[in-house]
């Protein structure tokens, strides 16, 4: 579908939303969240803060601001194979406004992300409306992103990439205890889409290990579609289960499925809400992915990014929200302290661990063991409602 056609479809739906003012919409909650986040796995640690504040003005306008930092250190398997350990920081600033006009919520957002070798700006517009006696909510969002890609150590290297995202969501109350949501999103990328540091390997009889490396080369366009269906059900006692399934496919030949199940259980006498989740993800790799190409420049496009390989991951997560008693609550408002921990196992089918060549073992190229690793993801945050 061409980009202009997508815009036409979205314009038509936006006109529909504006033309059917049936029931009142509600602005998001006024609250502030201060979070420490940490991802640790595969030789890499990424952590930092995220501060999100949202404040309403006259029940018409809701403003939000988010400051988010990724501090990256360590050496992933790619870096261990072909480069040196490094550390860097990504800073992200996001501003948003939601305006309630004639029973329709219209949203604008701006995000700026900067690293020493990557700059990205994204603007987004969304529209949302409740209708059918508040049982249904239709929403859509369009965002446009523009990136500058640089390469450390090479002042002459500067490339661009653009991203367009179009999403539609339909949320539906089905019974007194069941709500479901259907989400569809199309993403179109254009420009320099590969990582300027990453390499592919190819068989090279002149090399001591039997293989050498050359730079990755990706297509300059990528179009993807994702469809997700999620539902939440209130159990006969005060607890809830959530299920979510997403199907994804793109023009690079990648397809994936993921399934998530979540259980939420409040302990009212303890001021606690406990949560547990399971998530399964599986993908088939890109057409131009190979762990080991047969020779130099073997194909028009080439990748050995493990995120583009055949792999699966399994995640298990637990978390707790503690509602602070009044004597501890700041500003005499509702305060919560939250801790979530996720454990994720990544299992690659056709991405091999070339680090075995660092030792004395005589292993033929392509016969290395498949790579796998596990990661710990922690979210610790304090929330206060205004």
């Amino acid at each position: 579908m061409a980009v202009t056609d997508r815009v036409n479809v979205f314009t038509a739906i936006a006109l529909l939303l504006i033309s059917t003012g049936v029931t009142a919409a509600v602005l998001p909650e006024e609250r502030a969240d201060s979070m420490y986040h940490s991802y640790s796995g595969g030789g890499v640690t990424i952590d930092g803060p995220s501060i999100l504040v949202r404040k309403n003005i006259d029940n018409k306008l809701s403003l939000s601001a988010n400051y988010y930092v990724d501090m990256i250190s360590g050496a992933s398997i790619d870096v261990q194979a072909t480069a040196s350990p490094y550390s860097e920081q990504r800073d992200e600033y996001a501003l948003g406004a939601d305006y309630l006009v004639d029973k329709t919520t219209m949203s604008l957002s701006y995000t700026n992300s900067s690293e020493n070798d990557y700059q990205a700006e994204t603007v987004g517009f969304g529209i949302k409306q409740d209708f059918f006696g508040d049982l249904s909510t239709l929403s859509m969002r369009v965002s446009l992103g523009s990136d500058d890609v640089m390469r450390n150590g090479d002042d002459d290297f500067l490339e661009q990439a653009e991203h367009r995202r179009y999403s539609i969501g339909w949320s539906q109350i089905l019974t007194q205890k069941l709500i479901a949501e259907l989400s569809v999103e199309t993403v179109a990328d254009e420009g320099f889409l590969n990582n300027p540091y990453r390499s592919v390997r190819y068989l090279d009889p002149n090399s001591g290990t039997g293989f050498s490396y050359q730079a990755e080369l990706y297509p300059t366009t990528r179009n993807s579609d994702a469809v997700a269906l999620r539902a939440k059900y209130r159990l006969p006692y005060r607890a809830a289960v959530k299920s979510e399934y997403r199907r994804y496919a793109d023009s690079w030949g990648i397809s994936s499925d993921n399934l998530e199940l979540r259980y939420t259980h409040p302990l009212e006498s303890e001021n606690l809400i406990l949560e547990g989740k399971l998530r399964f993800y599986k993908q088939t790799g890109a057409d131009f992915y190979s762990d080991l190409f047969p020779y130099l420049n073997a194909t028009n496009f080439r990748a050995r990014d493990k995120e583009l390989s055949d792999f699966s991951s399994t995640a298990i997560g637990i978390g707790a929200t503690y509602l602070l008693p009044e004597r501890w609550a700041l500003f005499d408002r509702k305060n919560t302290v939250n801790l979530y921990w996720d454990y994720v196992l990544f299992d690659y089918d056709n991405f091999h661990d070339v680090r075995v060549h660092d030792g004395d073992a005589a292993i033929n190229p392509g016969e290395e063991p498949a790579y796998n690793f596990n990661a710990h993801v922690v979210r610790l945050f304090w929330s206060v409602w205004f």
Partner: protein
Amino acid sequence: MSRRALLILPVLLLLGGCESMMPEPWVKPYERHYLADPIMSFERDPVAAGYMNHVYEAREAARGAEGGAGGGCGCN
């Protein structure tokens, strides 16, 4: 496809104008106390949900359709 988009517009507007033909909402406002419970929202904490979407998007090829907290991370 642009012709198809033009056809969609009147169909959608027609649907919007025919609400009287639609069935009555079957869950009344006073029957929504279970749904109003915070544990029934898909994501209670936007700051935490947005972060997990970022974690997944950075390590998986799939992106999009994350629901309310999605929209891309603006990172490589």
